[in-house]
Protein backbone atom coordinates (compact mmCIF):
# COMPACT_ATOMS: atom_id res chain seq x y z
CA UNK A 1 0.00 0.00 0.00
CA UNK A 2 1.36 3.31 -0.96
CA UNK A 3 0.18 5.34 1.95
CA UNK A 4 0.74 8.87 3.03
CA UNK A 5 1.30 10.93 -0.08
CA UNK A 6 2.51 14.51 0.31
CA UNK A 7 -0.80 16.24 0.72
CA UNK A 8 -1.56 14.51 4.01
CA UNK A 9 1.49 15.47 5.93
CA UNK A 10 0.69 17.75 8.75
CA UNK A 11 2.74 19.86 11.06
CA UNK A 12 1.50 18.86 14.43
CA UNK A 13 3.37 21.64 16.20
CA UNK A 14 1.52 24.25 14.25
CA UNK A 15 -1.69 23.62 16.11
CA UNK A 16 -0.12 24.45 19.44
CA UNK A 17 0.00 27.94 20.81
CA UNK A 18 2.69 30.46 20.24
CA UNK A 19 3.83 33.41 22.19
CA UNK A 20 4.90 35.99 19.73
CA UNK A 21 7.68 38.08 21.20
CA UNK A 22 7.45 41.76 21.92
CA UNK A 23 8.21 44.04 24.80
CA UNK A 24 8.13 41.98 27.94
CA UNK A 25 5.49 44.28 29.42
CA UNK A 26 2.93 43.54 26.81
CA UNK A 27 3.50 40.18 25.33
CA UNK A 28 1.56 39.57 22.23
CA UNK A 29 0.39 36.07 22.25
CA UNK A 30 -1.34 33.77 19.94
CA UNK A 31 -3.34 31.64 22.24
CA UNK A 32 -3.86 28.15 21.12
CA UNK A 33 -4.43 25.74 23.76
CA UNK A 34 -1.71 23.98 25.51
CA UNK A 35 -2.78 20.49 26.28
CA UNK A 36 -1.57 20.93 29.83
CA UNK A 37 1.13 22.41 32.05
CA UNK A 38 3.74 19.95 30.80
CA UNK A 39 2.94 20.95 27.25
CA UNK A 40 3.37 24.63 28.13
CA UNK A 41 6.60 23.89 29.94
CA UNK A 42 8.03 21.99 26.99
CA UNK A 43 7.08 24.86 24.75
CA UNK A 44 8.81 27.40 26.99
CA UNK A 45 11.95 25.28 27.26
CA UNK A 46 12.09 25.00 23.49
CA UNK A 47 11.41 28.68 23.04
CA UNK A 48 14.23 29.54 25.42
CA UNK A 49 16.36 27.06 23.53
CA UNK A 50 17.24 25.46 26.80
CA UNK A 51 18.47 21.93 27.27
CA UNK A 52 15.84 19.74 28.82
CA UNK A 53 18.51 18.01 30.93
CA UNK A 54 19.69 21.33 32.32
CA UNK A 55 16.64 23.50 32.63
CA UNK A 56 17.39 27.11 33.62
CA UNK A 57 14.73 26.83 36.27
CA UNK A 58 14.63 30.49 37.33
CA UNK A 59 14.14 31.74 33.80
CA UNK A 60 11.59 29.09 32.88
CA UNK A 61 9.64 29.62 36.10
CA UNK A 62 9.48 33.31 35.35
CA UNK A 63 8.21 32.70 31.82
CA UNK A 64 5.74 30.19 33.07
CA UNK A 65 4.30 32.57 35.66
CA UNK A 66 4.19 35.29 33.04
CA UNK A 67 2.06 33.08 30.85
CA UNK A 68 -0.26 32.25 33.73
CA UNK A 69 -0.66 35.93 34.59
CA UNK A 70 -1.40 36.64 30.99
CA UNK A 71 -4.07 34.00 30.91
CA UNK A 72 -5.58 35.58 33.98
CA UNK A 73 -5.51 39.03 32.41
CA UNK A 74 -7.16 37.69 29.29
CA UNK A 75 -9.74 36.17 31.56
CA UNK A 76 -8.97 32.67 30.49
CA UNK A 77 -9.88 30.35 33.25
CA UNK A 78 -6.77 28.62 34.42
CA UNK A 79 -6.99 24.97 35.13
CA UNK A 80 -5.86 24.06 38.62
CA UNK A 81 -3.25 21.78 37.10
CA UNK A 82 -1.42 24.80 35.67
CA UNK A 83 -1.24 26.29 39.16
CA UNK A 84 0.02 23.03 40.62
CA UNK A 85 2.85 23.13 38.12
CA UNK A 86 3.60 26.75 39.00
CA UNK A 87 3.93 25.71 42.64
CA UNK A 88 6.18 22.81 41.68
CA UNK A 89 8.43 25.12 39.68
CA UNK A 90 8.73 27.58 42.52
CA UNK A 91 9.51 24.77 44.91
CA UNK A 92 12.30 23.48 42.66
CA UNK A 93 13.62 26.98 42.21
CA UNK A 94 13.83 27.57 45.95
CA UNK A 95 15.45 24.20 46.54
CA UNK A 96 18.11 25.09 44.05
CA UNK A 97 18.81 28.35 45.84
CA UNK A 98 19.51 26.56 49.09
CA UNK A 99 23.20 26.03 49.77
CA UNK A 100 24.37 22.43 49.74
CA UNK A 101 24.52 20.72 53.04
CA UNK A 102 28.12 21.37 54.19
CA UNK A 103 28.13 18.15 56.24
CA UNK A 104 27.11 15.98 53.33
CA UNK A 105 29.97 13.87 52.08
CA UNK A 106 31.67 14.87 48.86
CA UNK A 107 30.96 11.52 47.24
CA UNK A 108 27.31 11.53 48.19
CA UNK A 109 25.24 11.94 45.13
CA UNK A 110 22.74 14.68 45.72
CA UNK A 111 19.72 14.37 43.57
CA UNK A 112 19.07 17.34 41.38
CA UNK A 113 15.74 18.88 42.46
CA UNK A 114 14.88 19.08 38.78
CA UNK A 115 15.22 15.34 38.20
CA UNK A 116 11.62 14.35 38.82
CA UNK A 117 10.30 17.12 36.60
CA UNK A 118 12.69 16.17 33.80
CA UNK A 119 11.57 12.56 34.00
CA UNK A 120 7.96 13.61 33.76
CA UNK A 121 8.69 15.93 30.85
CA UNK A 122 10.50 13.22 28.94
CA UNK A 123 7.75 10.71 29.60
CA UNK A 124 5.11 13.24 28.61
CA UNK A 125 6.91 14.19 25.43
CA UNK A 126 6.85 10.59 24.23
CA UNK A 127 3.09 10.54 24.50
CA UNK A 128 2.77 13.93 22.89
CA UNK A 129 4.72 12.60 19.93
CA UNK A 130 2.56 9.48 19.94
CA UNK A 131 -0.50 11.74 19.83
CA UNK A 132 0.97 13.39 16.73
CA UNK A 133 1.46 9.99 15.18
CA UNK A 134 -2.18 9.12 15.88
CA UNK A 135 -3.23 12.38 14.33
CA UNK A 136 -1.37 11.63 11.14
CA UNK A 137 -2.73 8.11 11.02
CA UNK A 138 -6.32 9.33 11.34
CA UNK A 139 -5.71 11.90 8.61
CA UNK A 140 -4.45 9.22 6.24
CA UNK A 141 -7.33 7.02 7.27
CA UNK A 142 -9.81 9.74 6.37
CA UNK A 143 -8.60 9.53 2.80
CA UNK A 144 -9.79 5.94 2.60
CA UNK A 145 -13.42 5.15 2.02
CA UNK A 146 -15.36 1.95 2.28
CA UNK A 147 -18.58 1.33 0.44
CA UNK A 148 -21.65 3.19 1.61
CA UNK A 149 -24.06 1.32 3.82
CA UNK A 150 -26.52 -0.85 1.95
CA UNK A 151 -30.04 -1.68 2.96
CA UNK A 152 -29.22 -5.00 4.51
CA UNK A 153 -26.74 -3.43 6.94
CA UNK A 154 -29.45 -1.88 9.06
CA UNK A 155 -31.87 -4.68 8.56
CA UNK A 156 -29.25 -7.25 9.28
CA UNK A 157 -30.18 -10.81 8.53
CA UNK A 158 -28.94 -12.06 11.85
CA UNK A 159 -31.16 -10.39 14.35
CA UNK A 160 -31.85 -11.99 17.65
CA UNK A 161 -35.33 -13.35 17.87
CA UNK A 162 -37.35 -12.08 20.79
CA UNK A 163 -39.96 -13.90 22.82
CA UNK A 164 -42.60 -12.19 20.69
CA UNK A 165 -41.08 -13.55 17.50
CA UNK A 166 -41.22 -16.99 19.02
CA UNK A 167 -44.84 -16.54 20.01
CA UNK A 168 -45.75 -15.31 16.54
CA UNK A 169 -44.25 -18.40 14.94
CA UNK A 170 -46.00 -20.49 17.51
CA UNK A 171 -49.36 -18.92 16.86
CA UNK A 172 -48.95 -19.38 13.14
CA UNK A 173 -48.42 -23.08 13.59
CA UNK A 174 -51.31 -23.46 15.98
CA UNK A 175 -53.59 -21.62 13.60
CA UNK A 176 -52.57 -23.86 10.75
CA UNK A 177 -53.26 -26.94 12.77
CA UNK A 178 -56.76 -25.80 13.66
CA UNK A 179 -57.57 -25.67 9.97
CA UNK A 180 -56.12 -28.92 8.89
CA UNK A 181 -56.92 -31.50 11.49
CA UNK A 182 -58.90 -34.16 9.70
CA UNK A 183 -58.64 -37.27 11.66
CA UNK A 184 -57.98 -37.78 15.31
CA UNK A 185 -55.82 -40.74 16.02
CA UNK A 186 -55.05 -41.77 19.53
CA UNK A 187 -51.37 -41.35 20.09
CA UNK A 188 -49.07 -41.65 22.95
CA UNK A 189 -48.28 -38.19 24.27
CA UNK A 190 -44.66 -37.26 24.24
CA UNK A 191 -43.18 -35.89 27.46
CA UNK A 192 -41.22 -32.66 27.71
CA UNK A 193 -38.04 -34.57 28.53
CA UNK A 194 -38.43 -36.71 25.42
CA UNK A 195 -39.20 -33.72 23.31
CA UNK A 196 -36.10 -31.94 24.56
CA UNK A 197 -34.00 -34.98 23.89
CA UNK A 198 -35.27 -35.24 20.33
CA UNK A 199 -34.74 -31.55 19.64
CA UNK A 200 -31.30 -31.49 21.25
CA UNK A 201 -30.20 -34.49 19.25
CA UNK A 202 -31.37 -32.85 16.05
CA UNK A 203 -29.67 -29.52 16.81
CA UNK A 204 -26.36 -31.08 17.65
CA UNK A 205 -26.52 -33.39 14.68
CA UNK A 206 -27.35 -30.79 12.05
CA UNK A 207 -25.99 -27.65 13.67
CA UNK A 208 -29.29 -25.86 13.17
CA UNK A 209 -32.98 -26.65 13.12
CA UNK A 210 -35.84 -24.67 11.67
CA UNK A 211 -38.40 -24.03 14.36
CA UNK A 212 -41.24 -23.91 11.84
CA UNK A 213 -40.34 -27.29 10.42
CA UNK A 214 -39.88 -28.82 13.81
CA UNK A 215 -43.30 -27.65 14.92
CA UNK A 216 -44.89 -28.87 11.74
CA UNK A 217 -43.89 -32.39 12.60
CA UNK A 218 -46.08 -32.23 15.65
CA UNK A 219 -49.42 -33.95 15.54
CA UNK A 220 -51.48 -32.19 18.12
CA UNK A 221 -51.79 -28.87 19.81
CA UNK A 222 -50.52 -30.45 22.94
CA UNK A 223 -47.42 -31.70 21.23
CA UNK A 224 -46.79 -28.27 19.79
CA UNK A 225 -47.05 -26.77 23.23
CA UNK A 226 -44.59 -29.35 24.50
CA UNK A 227 -42.28 -28.62 21.58
CA UNK A 228 -42.48 -24.90 22.25
CA UNK A 229 -41.64 -25.43 25.92
CA UNK A 230 -38.76 -27.66 24.84
CA UNK A 231 -37.41 -24.88 22.62
CA UNK A 232 -37.52 -22.40 25.50
CA UNK A 233 -35.86 -24.88 27.84
CA UNK A 234 -33.10 -25.71 25.40
CA UNK A 235 -32.31 -22.11 24.64
CA UNK A 236 -32.14 -21.48 28.35
CA UNK A 237 -30.02 -24.46 29.30
CA UNK A 238 -27.96 -25.41 26.26
CA UNK A 239 -25.52 -23.46 24.13
CA UNK A 240 -28.08 -22.86 21.45
CA UNK A 241 -29.08 -19.50 20.04
CA UNK A 242 -32.11 -18.33 18.15
CA UNK A 243 -31.79 -16.55 14.85
CA UNK A 244 -34.37 -14.99 12.65
CA UNK A 245 -33.58 -14.08 9.08
CA UNK A 246 -36.54 -11.83 8.40
CA UNK A 247 -39.01 -10.13 10.63
CA UNK A 248 -41.93 -12.48 11.33
CA UNK A 249 -40.03 -15.17 9.45
CA UNK A 250 -38.86 -18.56 10.55
CA UNK A 251 -36.77 -18.88 13.68
CA UNK A 252 -33.67 -21.04 13.51
CA UNK A 253 -32.21 -22.85 16.48
CA UNK A 254 -28.47 -22.82 16.02
CA UNK A 255 -25.72 -24.56 17.90
CA UNK A 256 -23.20 -22.06 19.27
Amino acid at each position, binding site marked *: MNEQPEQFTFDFRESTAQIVGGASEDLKIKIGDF*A*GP*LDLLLFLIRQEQANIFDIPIARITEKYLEYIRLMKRLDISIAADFLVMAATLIEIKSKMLLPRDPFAGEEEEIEDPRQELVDRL*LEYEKFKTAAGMLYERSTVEQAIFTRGPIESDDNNAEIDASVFDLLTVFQKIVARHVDEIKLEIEREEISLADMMRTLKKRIFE*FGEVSMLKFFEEMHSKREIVTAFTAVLEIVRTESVKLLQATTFGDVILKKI
Partner: protein
Amino acid sequence: MDEEEIVSAPREARSPGQLVALVEALIFVASEPVTTKVLADVLEEERESIEAAIEQLQSDYLSRDSGLQVREIAGGWQLATRTDFHEEVRSFLKTRPSAKLSLASLETLAVIAYKQPVTVPEILEIRGVQSASAIKTLLDKRLIVAKGRKETVGRPMQYGTSKDFLIQFGLNDLSELPSIEDFEDLVQ
Protein backbone atom coordinates in the same frame (compact mmCIF):
# COMPACT_ATOMS: atom_id res chain seq x y z
CA MET B 1 -36.29 -34.75 6.53
CA ASP B 2 -35.34 -32.08 4.08
CA GLU B 3 -33.29 -30.35 6.75
CA GLU B 4 -30.69 -32.95 6.19
CA GLU B 5 -30.41 -31.91 2.58
CA ILE B 6 -30.17 -28.26 3.42
CA VAL B 7 -27.62 -28.60 6.14
CA SER B 8 -25.30 -31.27 4.91
CA ALA B 9 -25.78 -31.24 1.16
CA PRO B 10 -22.34 -31.93 -0.29
CA ARG B 11 -21.21 -28.92 -2.22
CA GLU B 12 -19.30 -29.03 -5.40
CA ALA B 13 -15.61 -28.42 -5.17
CA ARG B 14 -14.67 -24.87 -6.10
CA SER B 15 -11.87 -23.86 -8.35
CA PRO B 16 -9.30 -21.46 -6.84
CA GLY B 17 -10.64 -18.74 -9.12
CA GLN B 18 -14.18 -19.25 -7.88
CA LEU B 19 -13.03 -19.05 -4.31
CA VAL B 20 -11.23 -15.77 -4.97
CA ALA B 21 -14.40 -14.38 -6.52
CA LEU B 22 -16.53 -15.60 -3.62
CA VAL B 23 -14.20 -14.11 -1.04
CA GLU B 24 -14.31 -10.83 -2.94
CA ALA B 25 -18.11 -10.89 -2.94
CA LEU B 26 -18.31 -11.53 0.80
CA ILE B 27 -15.77 -8.87 1.71
CA PHE B 28 -17.68 -6.47 -0.50
CA VAL B 29 -21.05 -6.97 1.19
CA ALA B 30 -19.70 -7.08 4.72
CA SER B 31 -20.53 -3.90 6.60
CA GLU B 32 -17.42 -4.17 8.73
CA PRO B 33 -14.05 -5.91 8.45
CA VAL B 34 -14.63 -9.64 8.05
CA THR B 35 -12.21 -12.12 9.54
CA THR B 36 -10.52 -15.02 7.81
CA LYS B 37 -12.23 -17.37 10.24
CA VAL B 38 -15.71 -16.14 9.39
CA LEU B 39 -14.95 -16.49 5.69
CA ALA B 40 -13.61 -20.00 6.23
CA ASP B 41 -16.68 -21.00 8.24
CA VAL B 42 -19.21 -19.57 5.84
CA LEU B 43 -17.54 -20.99 2.76
CA GLU B 44 -16.62 -24.24 4.49
CA GLU B 45 -13.06 -23.94 3.37
CA GLU B 46 -9.75 -24.33 5.09
CA ARG B 47 -8.19 -21.22 6.57
CA GLU B 48 -5.22 -21.62 4.29
CA SER B 49 -7.36 -21.61 1.15
CA ILE B 50 -9.06 -18.43 2.30
CA GLU B 51 -5.72 -16.79 3.02
CA ALA B 52 -4.42 -17.78 -0.40
CA ALA B 53 -7.58 -16.44 -2.02
CA ILE B 54 -7.23 -13.10 -0.23
CA GLU B 55 -3.62 -12.84 -1.25
CA GLN B 56 -4.59 -13.55 -4.84
CA LEU B 57 -7.35 -10.97 -4.64
CA GLN B 58 -4.96 -8.35 -3.29
CA SER B 59 -2.46 -8.92 -6.05
CA ASP B 60 -5.26 -8.87 -8.64
CA TYR B 61 -6.31 -5.43 -7.46
CA LEU B 62 -2.74 -4.21 -7.42
CA SER B 63 -1.80 -5.56 -10.81
CA ARG B 64 -4.71 -3.98 -12.62
CA ASP B 65 -4.22 -0.67 -10.85
CA SER B 66 -7.66 -0.82 -9.33
CA GLY B 67 -9.36 2.04 -7.55
CA LEU B 68 -9.98 -0.36 -4.71
CA GLN B 69 -7.76 -2.17 -2.29
CA VAL B 70 -8.23 -5.12 0.03
CA ARG B 71 -6.84 -4.11 3.38
CA GLU B 72 -6.36 -5.88 6.67
CA ILE B 73 -7.80 -3.87 9.49
CA ALA B 74 -8.95 -4.57 13.05
CA GLY B 75 -8.20 -8.25 12.52
CA GLY B 76 -10.41 -8.51 9.42
CA TRP B 77 -10.52 -7.75 5.72
CA GLN B 78 -12.09 -4.74 4.13
CA LEU B 79 -12.57 -3.42 0.64
CA ALA B 80 -11.74 0.28 0.45
CA THR B 81 -10.84 3.00 -1.99
CA ARG B 82 -7.28 3.97 -2.68
CA THR B 83 -5.90 6.91 -0.70
CA ASP B 84 -4.87 8.90 -3.76
CA PHE B 85 -8.48 9.17 -4.93
CA HIS B 86 -9.64 10.81 -1.73
CA GLU B 87 -10.40 14.21 -3.23
CA GLU B 88 -12.60 12.87 -5.99
CA VAL B 89 -14.32 10.37 -3.73
CA ARG B 90 -14.97 13.03 -1.14
CA SER B 91 -16.40 15.49 -3.60
CA PHE B 92 -18.61 12.75 -5.01
CA LEU B 93 -19.84 11.81 -1.54
CA LYS B 94 -20.12 15.51 -0.67
CA THR B 95 -18.52 14.86 2.68
CA ARG B 96 -15.90 16.72 4.57
CA PRO B 97 -13.26 15.19 6.78
CA SER B 98 -14.87 14.55 10.12
CA ALA B 99 -14.04 16.76 13.05
CA LYS B 100 -10.56 16.33 14.38
CA LEU B 101 -9.89 15.32 17.92
CA SER B 102 -8.51 18.05 20.14
CA LEU B 103 -4.91 17.99 21.25
CA ALA B 104 -5.99 16.98 24.75
CA SER B 105 -8.14 14.12 23.42
CA LEU B 106 -5.35 12.87 21.16
CA GLU B 107 -2.87 12.88 24.01
CA THR B 108 -5.28 11.07 26.30
CA LEU B 109 -5.95 8.55 23.55
CA ALA B 110 -2.21 8.02 23.06
CA VAL B 111 -1.73 7.36 26.78
CA ILE B 112 -4.65 4.92 26.82
CA ALA B 113 -3.48 3.16 23.67
CA TYR B 114 -0.01 2.56 25.04
CA LYS B 115 -0.75 2.02 28.71
CA GLN B 116 -4.00 0.10 28.61
CA PRO B 117 -5.69 -0.89 30.76
CA VAL B 118 -5.12 2.44 32.44
CA THR B 119 -6.97 4.43 35.10
CA VAL B 120 -7.81 8.13 35.19
CA PRO B 121 -5.21 8.91 37.93
CA GLU B 122 -2.55 7.15 35.86
CA ILE B 123 -3.43 9.27 32.84
CA LEU B 124 -3.27 12.39 35.01
CA GLU B 125 0.17 11.33 36.19
CA ILE B 126 1.52 11.26 32.64
CA ARG B 127 -0.31 14.21 31.17
CA GLY B 128 -0.11 16.44 34.24
CA VAL B 129 -3.64 17.61 33.64
CA GLN B 130 -7.17 16.39 34.30
CA SER B 131 -8.48 14.38 31.39
CA ALA B 132 -12.13 13.94 32.33
CA SER B 133 -13.62 15.75 29.35
CA ALA B 134 -11.19 14.14 26.93
CA ILE B 135 -12.16 10.73 28.28
CA LYS B 136 -15.82 11.56 27.84
CA THR B 137 -15.22 12.63 24.23
CA LEU B 138 -13.31 9.43 23.53
CA LEU B 139 -16.03 7.31 25.11
CA ASP B 140 -18.69 9.15 23.10
CA LYS B 141 -16.76 8.50 19.92
CA ARG B 142 -16.40 4.88 20.98
CA LEU B 143 -12.65 5.02 20.60
CA ILE B 144 -12.15 3.74 24.12
CA VAL B 145 -14.10 1.38 26.34
CA ALA B 146 -14.22 0.72 30.06
CA LYS B 147 -12.20 -2.35 30.94
CA GLY B 148 -13.32 -3.15 34.46
CA ARG B 149 -12.04 -1.76 37.72
CA LYS B 150 -8.56 -1.86 39.12
CA GLU B 151 -8.28 -3.65 42.45
CA THR B 152 -6.67 -0.79 44.27
CA VAL B 153 -7.78 1.98 46.59
CA GLY B 154 -10.99 3.48 45.24
CA ARG B 155 -11.28 0.77 42.60
CA PRO B 156 -10.86 3.23 39.71
CA MET B 157 -12.27 2.36 36.30
CA GLN B 158 -9.72 1.22 33.75
CA TYR B 159 -9.88 2.15 30.09
CA GLY B 160 -8.62 0.57 26.91
CA THR B 161 -8.99 1.18 23.18
CA SER B 162 -11.86 -0.28 21.16
CA LYS B 163 -12.21 -1.99 17.80
CA ASP B 164 -13.39 1.33 16.40
CA PHE B 165 -10.05 2.77 17.44
CA LEU B 166 -8.26 0.20 15.30
CA ILE B 167 -10.54 0.95 12.36
CA GLN B 168 -10.31 4.73 12.60
CA PHE B 169 -6.56 4.68 12.92
CA GLY B 170 -5.99 2.07 10.25
CA LEU B 171 -4.51 -0.56 12.52
CA ASN B 172 -4.81 -4.30 12.22
CA ASP B 173 -4.07 -4.80 15.90
CA LEU B 174 -2.40 -2.93 18.73
CA SER B 175 1.00 -4.45 18.01
CA GLU B 176 1.05 -2.36 14.84
CA LEU B 177 1.46 0.78 16.89
CA PRO B 178 5.08 1.92 16.83
CA SER B 179 6.76 1.20 20.16
CA ILE B 180 6.49 4.09 22.61
CA GLU B 181 10.22 3.85 23.20
CA ASP B 182 10.76 4.73 19.55
CA PHE B 183 9.48 8.19 20.29
CA GLU B 184 12.26 8.69 22.74
CA ASP B 185 14.74 9.25 19.91
CA LEU B 186 12.72 12.24 18.82
CA VAL B 187 13.05 13.84 22.20
CA GLN B 188 15.95 16.18 22.15
